[in-house]
Every structure is written in structure tokens, then in C-alpha cells.
């Protein structure tokens, strides 16, 4: 029933209707999270005190500025993450069309090899950072 409704919408000239389920999902997520926060704020009792407002109610007394400089390693991991993220983005359209690729390229395994070559190159990069010890934080002394 719902499926038929969606299909009928997809056939309407306005393609943007396809994203109504996504919109509902976003609304549900935003609605639920705001509801939870608001409800706990409204229902709960507020008794602010000096101890309650400190960083931790138990544990050590905070010292210095919380905003210290972060190690450059975080940056490197984020950078490498982006690179592999971009690689993954290319794999999605490939996976979508994989079964049709023999027809498109005119060769049976061509579509398979083209992605394999691509991944092969990126794996070289992975091997490089692995062997260089970029991912081993405890042993690596060459950073900040």
C-alpha cells in the first residue's frame, strides 16, 4: 500500500516527491530528540548548586584550560579518513551498476578490473601509511 503510493509519486513529473520519506525521517529524528531534551527540561526539577555546576561532581578538580592544542596525529587520521572516504564514494556508483557493466563496456570482466586497479592504487597508499607507522600512536615518536 505504502509502496504503491511511493511508486505513484515517483511517476509524477516532480522528482522531488521521492524525498518525502527522507523528510519524514528527518522530522522524526529532530522531533524526537527535541522532545526528549525539552521534556527532561520541563519535567525535571532544577536545583543548581556550586558543586553541581562544576565540571565533574566527583573525580579530580579541573586544572588549566580545557582547550589545549591537539596532537597533529588527529589531523593526519582525519586527512587519511577523507581520502578513503572519497574512495568509498566512488565504489557506490560502481556497485549500483556492476551487473550492467559488461554490457556497457563491452567486455565481461572489464568493469571488475577497472575497480580493482583503482583499489589497488589506494591500497598502496594504505600499505605506505601502515608501514610508516602513522596508525601506531603508542610507538610513534615522530609526531608532535
Amino acid at each position, binding site marked *: 500500500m505504502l509502496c504503491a503510493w511511493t511508486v505513484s509519486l515517483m511517476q509524477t513529473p516532480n522528482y522531488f516527491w521521492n524525498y518525502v520519506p527522507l523528510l519524514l525521517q528527518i522530522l522524526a529524528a529532530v522531533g524526537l530528540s527535541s522532545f526528549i531534551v525539552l521534556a527532561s527540561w520541563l519535567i525535571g526539577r532544577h536545583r543548581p548548586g556550586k558543586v553541581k555546576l562544576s565540571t565533574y561532581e566527583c573525580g579530580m578538580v579541573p586544572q588549566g584550560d580545557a582547550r589545549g*592544542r591537539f596532537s597533529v596525529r588527529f589531523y*593526519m587520521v582525519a586527512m587519511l579518513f577523507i581520502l578513503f572516504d572519497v574512495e568509498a564514494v566512488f565504489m557506490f556508483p560502481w556497485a549500483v551498476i556492476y551487473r550492467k557493466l559488461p554490457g556497457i563496456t563491452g567486455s565481461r570482466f572489464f568493469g571488475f578490473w577497472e575497480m580493482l586497479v583503482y583499489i589497488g592504487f*589506494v591500497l598502496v597508499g594504505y600499505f*605506505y601509511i601502515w608501514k610508516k607507522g602513522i596508525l601506531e600512536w603508542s610507538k610513534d615518536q615522530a609526531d608532535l
Partner: protein
Amino acid sequence: MNVAIFILFALLCLGGALNLLLQRHPINSALSLIVVMSSLSVLYLLLGAEFLALAQIIVYSGAIMVLFVFVIMLLNAGEEERTHGSRAAYFAGIPGVLALFAVLAGTFVTLRLSFGGTRLGAFLVTTGDLSRVLFRNLLLPFEVTSVLILVAILGAVVLARKEH
């Protein structure tokens, strides 16, 4: 309705971009950049570029923004101080930007009739359509992107790592 969505998100995008420039704390600027990226992705969706819209969210709003925030934390960048800016920026930069804008706007206004109209949301480029071009006609640019990724990996290691 599509026009309404377009106007809403185009304004959101512009507002985010302006806020990015005017905010004094880098974290606030970074957060407005997320607004810009996300509203851009809605605009792509309106043009039927489904895959591009989602890649925009995943790569830009997701991964690249994380990197930005890391860089801000790495530098421990606080609130920026206001300066008067360089004189070159006022005497060459601003007229240059205005001239560029005038040329582009003039071109598009002059040619608006020959461009013809389009109906937002009336067409759709599926991921399959994209793949058909990407894995056949643009196969070589796609493969060469992997070399670009290798260069970027080398660059990250060379520039960010300390010398022994």
C-alpha cells in the same frame, strides 16, 4: 513548491556563507560552513543530481568538516582579532571581485533567453546514469583519481610529520 524550496535553501546557503565570513570564532565559521554545504546539497537534489547531493553530505559536511574542526583544535585557534586588512585587498581585491561578479551577472542576464527555462525537480539523473558515464567515457579520469589520492597521502605524511 520547488521554487519555494529553492529560494529557502539558496537564502540559507547565502546566509551561512555570510555568517562564515563575519563570525569571529573559527568554530562558528566552521559550523556555518556545514549549513552552506548542506543547503548546497539540497540545491543539487533539486537539479536531480541525487548522487552528488549525498556525496556532498558524506564527504563535505561529514569528513571534511571533521578535518576543519581538528585543524582548529590543533592550532587552538581562539577568537580572531580585527585588523584593518591589507590595502591591496581594498584597492585591488574588492574592485576585482565586483568586476568579476558584474561580468558573470551581465553574461547570464544577457543570455537568459537563449539559455531557456527549466523546471526544478522535473528531471532526474540517477546514480546508474552517472556510473554509465563514469565507468566508460570518463574511465581514465576516474582511474587517475587514485594517483591524486596517493599524492594527497604522501603530502599529508610529508607536511604533517616531524623530521626525525
